[in-house]
């Protein structure tokens, strides 16, 4: 198909605001008479609060109020299960938990007041490791869990501290293992990483005299936030008004209430607007990072190299609260990726989400997929080697096919994994002689659903002939508003400049799922597309009356309705709009789109890495990365490629650069100086390959892309490392230190080889 606006690398609608500094983020909101809030956090991982003395802090000049749990409604909050207090009541469960809150005239005074609050604690036994927390003698963090609001009864477990146990099962695993000639067992661990958005969470609340609360916060789910906040501060839903403003990066981390309930309570107490901005130290101490994971795989393979059975046990260190997990299962559904991009007929996956006295973990880009795919795709190479098979060939024998079912039971159709994998290995020169023998190559594959949920669109034609789209889809940086603008321009055959985008508030629509889960271009796209189609019909109907013809005789192009057979008979869109207004039939359309079941079409990613290792230091250099994706119609190639590149570099960060180091529940990397995010010098040479077919549920036959490229790269790096120097790292991240130590161990083993372990050089 050829399109007018679709497929064009159109710059962002909010671009001028963002490059001039005019775009206003939550932390930029300044209101008259605004006060500043700051939270005092627990220094202990598990303790009883014996006494809090706020007197000295209250007496500090400039301090306006100091609140503790006794000043707030006695309730719990969360994104699904409500298990987290707004301020710790009688017990703290992690280092960084909020214990008291100060409002002051300025942030420095609020900060100073922290040191004047006295808290006496009585330490309690703590547990930091998820597997230890599941043992009978572990301290119970939430003895009342089963009675918490929205606790998922279907996923309760009798194991201590397990707050959600989810099983995905296909076929008959025992029978599958019975048919296997080889049975392999592998285990892996992954670490904490932060979403790394450069905008720390900020919240502002202002309460009007009639009680209406205006809320600005770094949040990509404004409608859900409104509901959760209403519960958290015990006011009616209608009294909350959430402003949709730019979000300074999300990657899964900006879906919770964060400090907004505290801002509300302080604002109500003071009768003044209140703002709270987290520091990056607070982000790293008490944000909602990616879950550390322990993954055990048991896999049965036939003599022919076909995987016939798998058991997977995935244990997520949930931290002190489950409050940051939005899914109905209150677990990390990425665990279901333990089948990988393969059709395994007999599989049982068990995911345990476990309370510990660590920072509560949350969602991060493709939640669970990067962890579990690291394990699955590393294991593919390990098994291939043991079977004497080529890693690519072993994968090819097991790839998903049309009609196969995922472990969730969900069928997949139009499966493009083979083509995607082939495209990646072709572009990577897989199997070609290596320029240097020290170069290692690695490969990995994954898939990601196309997201679902609700979204809305309102479209109207203005008196000047421009079309206004009102959307409540937040733009976390993905370019969603620009994509929606292109959909309108295409459907109405308008120049892009003639389409304005207006961002709604939570008053304009009833509900909207918000951004996340590879959803927006699909559901907000469909809402917008359908609204545009209906608007077009409406325009043509009004124009037909004015031109005394049938709507089907008309064309709409470049803002003009014309009779196809006689183009002299025509009207400008502005004229149609004005006439419609006179006849009290304004050209306004509203549409809600809702999809509850995942499409059967999914998107595959195959990545290939070439790297080289400095044997003296363990330092790895990525020489080449290929990322191949099966895609449908691309609405905006600039934004689409931006998603691929950004996700890929986050994957590299997860694999070999980033680590929130912990010691007994204490995060020791508490600044971006210690927690290293990839910078511009860390990026590898990258080749992107798109395997394209106009197919998919996104308007104009497209697919999702945002959560695809982040996933396989880590295993591809691990596999390339093994190929280069024979070192297999199963515990992320793959740092130079770890590689160096493994090389040393390898060298020692080679010098004193036990007979049966000798490795050929």
């Amino acid at each position, binding site marked *: 198909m050829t399109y007018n606006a679709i497929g064009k690398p159109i710059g962002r609608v909010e671009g001028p605001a963002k490059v001039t500094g005019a775009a206003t983020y939550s932390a930029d909101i300044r209101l008259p008479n605004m006060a500043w809030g700051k939270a005092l956090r627990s220094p202990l991982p598990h303790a009883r609060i014996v006494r809090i003395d706020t007197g000295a802090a209250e007496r500090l000049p400039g301090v306006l109020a100091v609140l503790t749990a006794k000043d707030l409604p006695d309730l719990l909050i969360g994104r699904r299960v409500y298990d987290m207090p707004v301020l710790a009541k009688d017990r703290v469960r992690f280092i960084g938990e909020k214990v008291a809150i100060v409002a002051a005239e300025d942030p420095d005074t609020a900060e100073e007041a922290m040191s004047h609050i006295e808290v006496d604690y009585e330490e309690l036994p703590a547990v930091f490791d998820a597997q230890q927390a599941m043992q009978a003698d572990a301290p119970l963090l939430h003895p009342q869990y089963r009675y918490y609001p929205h606790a998922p009864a279907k996923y309760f477990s009798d194991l201590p501290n397990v707050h959600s146990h989810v099983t995905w099962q296909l076929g008959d695993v025992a029978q599958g293992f019975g048919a296997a000639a080889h049975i392999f067992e592998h285990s892996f661990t992954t670490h904490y990483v932060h979403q790394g958005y450069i905008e*720390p969470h900020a919240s502002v609340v202002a309460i009007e005299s009639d009680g209406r609360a205006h809320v600005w916060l770094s949040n990509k789910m404004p409608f859900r936030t409104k509901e959760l906040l209403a519960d958290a501060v015990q006011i009616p839903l209608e009294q909350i008004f959430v402003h949709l403003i730019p979000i300074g990066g999300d990657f899964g981390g900006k879906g919770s209430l964060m400090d907004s309930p505290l801002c509300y309570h302080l604002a109500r107490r003071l009768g003044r607007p209140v703002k709270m901005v987290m520091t990056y130290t607070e982000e790293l101490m008490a944000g909602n990072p990616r879950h550390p994971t322990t993954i055990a795989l048991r896999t049965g393979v036939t003599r022919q190299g076909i995987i016939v059975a798998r058991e997977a046990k995935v244990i997520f260190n949930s931290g002190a609260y489950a409050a940051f997990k939005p899914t109905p299962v209150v677990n990390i559904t990425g665990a279901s990726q333990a089948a990988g991009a393969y059709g395994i007929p007999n599989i049982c996956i068990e995911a345990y989400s476990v309370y510990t006295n660590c920072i509560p973990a949350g969602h991060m880009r493709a939640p669970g997929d990067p962890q579990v795919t690291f394990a699955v795709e590393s294991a593919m190479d390990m098994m291939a080697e043991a079977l004497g098979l080529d890693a690519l060939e072993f994968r090819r024998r097991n790839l998903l096919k049309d009609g196969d079912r995922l472990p969730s039971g969900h069928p997949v159709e139009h499966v493009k994994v083979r083509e995607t994998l082939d495209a990646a290995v072709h572009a990577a020169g897989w199997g070609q002689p290596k320029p240097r023998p020290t170069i290692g190559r690695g490969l990995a594959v994954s898939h990601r659903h196309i997201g679902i949920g609700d979204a809305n669109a309102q479209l109207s034609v203005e008196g000047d002939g421009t079309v206004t789209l009102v959307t409540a889809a937040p733009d976390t940086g993905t370019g969603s508003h620009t994509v929606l603008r292109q959909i309108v321009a295409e459907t109405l055959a308008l120049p892009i400049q003639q389409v304005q985008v207006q961002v709604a508030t939570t008053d304009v629509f009833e509900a909207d799922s918000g951004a996340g889960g590879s959803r927006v271009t699909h559901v907000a796209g469909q809402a917008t597309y359908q609204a545009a189609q209906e608007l077009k019909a409406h325009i043509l109907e009004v124009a037909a009356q004015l031109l005394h013809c049938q709507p089907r005789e008309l064309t709409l192009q470049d803002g003009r309705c014309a009779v196809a057979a006689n183009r002299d008979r025509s009207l400008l869109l502005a004229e149609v709009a004005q006439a419609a207004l006179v006849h009290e039939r304004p050209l306004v359309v509203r549409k809600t789109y809702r999809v509850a079941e995942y499409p059967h079409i999914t998107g595959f990613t195959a990545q290939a890495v070439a790297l080289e290792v400095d044997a003296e230091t363990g330092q790895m250099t990525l020489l080449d990365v290929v990322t191949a994706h099966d895609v449908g119609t691309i609405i905006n190639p600039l934004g689409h490629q*931006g998603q691929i590149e950004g996700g890929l570099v986050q994957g590299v960060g997860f694999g070999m650069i980033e680590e929130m180091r912990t010691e007994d529940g204490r995060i020791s990397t508490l600044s*971006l100086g210690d927690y290293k995010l990839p910078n511009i010098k860390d990026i590898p040479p990258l080749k992107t390959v798109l395997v394209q077919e106009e197919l998919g549920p996104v308007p104009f036959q497209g697919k999702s892309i945002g959560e695809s490229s982040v996933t396989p790269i880590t295993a591809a790096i691990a596999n390339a490392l093994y190929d280069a120097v024979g070192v297999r790292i199963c515990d992320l991240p793959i740092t130079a230190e770890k590689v160096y130590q493994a090389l040393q161990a390898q060298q020692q083993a080679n010098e004193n080889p036990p007979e049966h372990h000798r490795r050929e050089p």
Partner: protein
Amino acid sequence: MTHTIRMHVNGKDYTLDMPAQRLLIDCLRYDLGLTGTKEGCSVGVCGACTVLMDGALVSSCLTLAVLADGKQITTVEGLAHNGTLHPVQQAFIDFGGFQCGICTPGMVVAAKALLDENPNPSDDEIKDWMMGNLCRCTGYYKILESIRGAATRLQTERV
């Protein structure tokens, strides 16, 4: 303790009574209302707060406002002229050099300073210069393209 300082910010003169410990970023954002400059890490690592002081890049989150006494400060708000974007700003839009936009003010200020000093930088020179500005959205590829694109346009303008 408070000092009286005179600052020239984006071509405007300000005389301000400044507490000795006040940071330049807070002065810009809250005393002058120039919230285009962003605070990310607060420790001089992420570059979101980058501004120019007498043409040199500084992290405004680590710089005391009193040190700006008598200096020319350029923030992101000072790059466009009479509603026309600076070529670096336009290139960041055209080449997809940002997504969420939170790092962008620091990025475009740093990129402008680079091109002022080195109108035709190599990729390695761009990377060396820009490594103090973190972006979590783009993976940097399109930032490189944006700066290359801006360099080309600026050179064409000069010819």
